[in-house]
């Protein structure tokens, strides 16, 4: 068990466990990976990388998906 970390997810602080991956975070948040784009510290991640990129203290994660809108 690694030391707890604090990350930012969609602008909100979140206490999280060190060493966990982006895929772990999505699972914890009940978000389907195939429906979202993830930006880690301004870098857009390939979906294939979700399970490999682990998060560290101070990381900023943005999780985005499609919503209603457009040519309002």
């Amino acid at each position: 068990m690694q030391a707890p970390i604090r990350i930012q997810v969609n602008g909100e602080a979140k206490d999280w466990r060190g060493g966990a991956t982006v895929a772990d975070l999505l699972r914890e948040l009940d978000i389907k990976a195939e429906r979202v784009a993830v930006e880690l510290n301004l870098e857009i991640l390939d979906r294939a990388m979700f399970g490999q990129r682990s998060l560290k203290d101070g990381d900023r994660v943005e999780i985005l998906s499609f919503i209603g809108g457009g040519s309002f």
Partner: protein
Amino acid sequence: MADDRLVIAGREFKSRLWVGTGKYKDFVETQKAIEASGADVVTVAVRRVNITDRSKDNLLDYIDPKKYTILPNTAGCYTVEDAVRYSRLARAAGVSDLIKLEVLGDEKTLFPDTAGLIEAAKILIKEGFIVLPYTNDDPIVAKKLVDIGCPAVMPLAAPIGSGLGIRNPYNLKILMESVTVPVIVDAGVGTASDAALAMEYGADAVLMNTAIAGAQNPLAMAEAMKYAVWAGRLAYKAGRIPRKLYATASSPIEGML
């Protein structure tokens, strides 16, 4: 109309009415309105997932990406940097390279910042995006967008959400004659006649959101728009009669008493 397909960058589209997904009461209404419109291209925005309230449904649970072409847009982007960032995120979230590129000039008019639009389009085209730019009814800008590699252009009829209809039909007509790529009139449509008119002028498709979602009865308006786009397209292909100041009798004089 079955053989009258719209083709953009090698992709075939059945419907010449494209619709947005904003401003509906809920996802069920969104789904029903899209169904009633007959549209097969549906534009969506890209935003943060609500991570605190996960009870909210996902739009794509209601709009099947296998049935519809999902066209992400960069609505709400006022800078080249933001538009490029959102385009990349849209590609990462979705399955295609299609992007409806919007670089907006200001909040009051939501007119496109055409200089920024061209700049962003160049960057994205280099990255392999199929850029469908939301632009002004300016034929010169449209030509520039085509020159840099946009496979279609999407000029406005009037400000987004204004419902004013086609404010500058002559510019739009010149624009359509100036470019060799499909022209999709995007934004400003208020009612069915506006959509029909756009198609009669020679638009290849019409994209709208508020005119349907904001109508008293969105489902009925969606259906009206479907027929308006059909009628306008058919009339354009049929070729209208020239306008004349004076009457021309349609009944023969012969045989009169």
